[in-house]
């Protein structure tokens, strides 16, 4: 799919605003590259929803304690925590709102999934004790992200929340959760290992010479213990694939629902914008679409004069000879003022250039908001309020 095609399916759809997006969504998935304020934005969306009377929760997979920082909390538990009303609620807010937050524990989520589909305690214990199993939850690409989706499914099923805002991890693989169910199933269904493990009575002998050679080669490199662990895992896992497959399907169905929305977060830097477009493409490839774009850390511009013009005015001013009535120091300062202005005009117009047409490419009809670079740091509820205000007043 090329970039120009993005969002063509959305042409006929009504324009979305962040207010309507918040009102009509049950799940919002925030995606974007690192350092663009994704976690903070996710928290701001959840707070805004809570303030409008919804029971909202923000879920982060970020190993750092950033969300906790943003909410002014000392730390987050792996279970949902209700944030004290007095921290975020304002006097004119609807009192029915509730704000929760949680930091995902992918391993615990995976364990629960195993326990759920295991045929009894014995099977689940055998799997949980296996060291290959322990690696899956941390080392298999996208598994952590997938567990976020799994948790999302659980939170959605439990009915405690009107809106779930999910923050995805800041990596190039942030969208791996889209492919993760397949990857996991592919791994669990690996043909070679099924050959090795299925006829458990005859073991390697039944596997054929080719497979044996392969397994021996692998053992030489990583050691027989590791290979034994892998084989033991596949034996222990037998019979559970179906449960996992069904679960993966219902997670996918949840993501595909019309009340699940993707919001891209970016900064106006060229690399971040390109990353956002790449994310949009991948989301589009999976048949979902981006409903909102939030551009954080946009530099303010002051006035409308071109940066280069301001710079030549400054240079000209510096070149003027000093006179008694026009001292060099005053002219110097004046030229510096013009340079300051020029700096912001240059960076601002470059950023706007980077963003040119991005709305069209990311999805026609999507809500777009620009959040300027805040002069202060963003780790307080007040700052989150400010961000929310900027997102929700920006005309689309």
């Amino acid at each position, binding site marked *: 799919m090329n970039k120009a095609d993005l969002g063509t399916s959305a042409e006929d759809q009504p324009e979305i605003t962040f207010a309507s997006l918040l009102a009509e969504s049950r799940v919002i998935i925030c995606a974007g590259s690192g350092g663009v304020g994704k976690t903070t934005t996710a928290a701001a969306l959840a707070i805004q929803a809570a303030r409008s009377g919804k029971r909202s929760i923000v879920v982060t997979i970020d190993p750092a304690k950033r969300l906790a920082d943003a909410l002014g909390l000392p730390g987050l538990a792996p279970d949902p925590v209700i944030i004290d009303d007095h921290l975020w609620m304002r006097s004119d807010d609807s009192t029915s709102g509730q704000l929760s937050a949680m930091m995902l524990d992918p391993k615990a989520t995976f364990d629960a999934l195993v326990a759920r589909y295991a045929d009894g305690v014995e099977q689940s214990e055998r799997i949980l004790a296996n060291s290959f199993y322990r690696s899956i939850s941390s080392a298999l690409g996208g598994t952590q992200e997938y567990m976020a989706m799994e948790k999302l499914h659980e939170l959605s099923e439990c009915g405690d929340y009107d809106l779930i805002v999910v923050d995805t991890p800041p990596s190039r693989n942030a969208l791996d959760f889209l492919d993760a169910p397949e990857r996991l199933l592919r791994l669990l269904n690996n043909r070679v290992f099924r050959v090795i493990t299925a006829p458990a009575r005859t073991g390697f002998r039944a596997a054929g010479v080719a497979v044996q050679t392969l397994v021996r080669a692998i053992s030489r490199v990583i050691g027989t213990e590791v290979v034994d662990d892998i084989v033991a895992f596949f034996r222990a896992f037998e019979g559970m694939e179906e449960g996992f497959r069904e679960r993966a399907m219902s997670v996918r169905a949840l993501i595909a629902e019309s009340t699940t929305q993707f919001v891209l977060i970016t900064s106006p830097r060229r690399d971040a914008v390109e990353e956002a477009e790449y994310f949009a493409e991948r989301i589009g490839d999976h048949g979902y679409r981006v409903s909102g774009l939030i551009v954080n850390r946009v530099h303010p511009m002051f006035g409308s004069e071109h940066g280069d013009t301001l710079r030549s005015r400054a240079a000209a001013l510096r070149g003027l000879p000093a006179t008694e009535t026009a001292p060099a120091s005053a002219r110097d300062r004046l030229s510096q003022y013009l340079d300051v202005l020029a700096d*912001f005009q240059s960076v601002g117009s470059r950023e706007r250039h980077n963003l040119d047409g991005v709305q069209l490419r990311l999805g026609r009809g999507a809500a777009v908001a620009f959040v300027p670079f805040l002069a202060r740091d963003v780790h307080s509820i007040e700052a989150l309020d400010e961000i929310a205000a900027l997102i929700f007043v920006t005309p689309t």
Partner: protein
Amino acid sequence: MAGKGGVGKTTVVAALAVVAARSGLSVLIAEVEGKSGLSKAFGVNDLEYEEIVLSKGISARTLTPDAALSEWLQGNGLGRIARRLNASGILEIVATAVPGMKDILVLGKIKGLEQSKAFDLILVDAPAAGHAVSFLTSPLGLLEAVGVGPIKTQASDVVAMLSDPSRAQVMLVTTPEETPVREAIETAFALEDRVGVALGPIIVNGIYTDNLTITSENELGNTDLFDHTALQESISLDAQVSGYPLSTAEISDIAAAISFRHARSRVQSHQADELSKSLPIPQLRLPYLFDGEIGFPQIERLADALSAQIESLPDPLIGEPAGKNE
């Protein structure tokens, strides 16, 4: 070189490479996490596994685990099975079974390059901060997990390289903002405690230089830079005595710009100070470039700024003949 996403790590890597190349060293930049934008800054195509020359004295390549693996398998007489491993999906299983295997392949390749002495300096554009720790702890983890075999040898060779400050150092890159600073501090401690790798100076990138003389010696020196009315009066006065009239709108724009710049600059100095307090290592500070676009001229400006500061560091970091990874 490690740092949180969006702090300009790749740009800093490029600037440091320029500094080293100027002093006559041959430099290799190794990209380990997909495309980084480095190639764009130098105006070349995306990097490949095969090395290319970016500019005089600077080469670059990307090191992917897959390419490193097939090269390694071939070097270990296992080339024949490499393709089958990939096609059967077993590789993914093995990589999952041995967490950090992909990292060790990449680090092993870097170690090989270091020992080949083909370059005086190897700059590794490492994964973003949190992942940098797991990237660099992977050899230690592997030593525990895998009892035997060539992978274990590989891991212990890499550990030897990482724990020798004359062979490898980590330079952290951050911006003077709360979250990146906090992450840099966490990363620094994690790296020292868990990897035992030496830390070079930390680079604080994107500083708004408040080099306006308005902060001293003149009417504005006493002006509260957040007080718009006072600010506008001072600007207006300067304009009058210079015989260079400005419109009210212009004066107001200038005042707003100065206030904003000053506010950001104050947040930044506060964060840079916090960083010094928590992390007692030398800082190299780089200015924010208002150009908005990073190309070779910008990298050269950053290199100039780095050179000036590196000269005043207690121990020369760059300029030793020995190969070094950062």
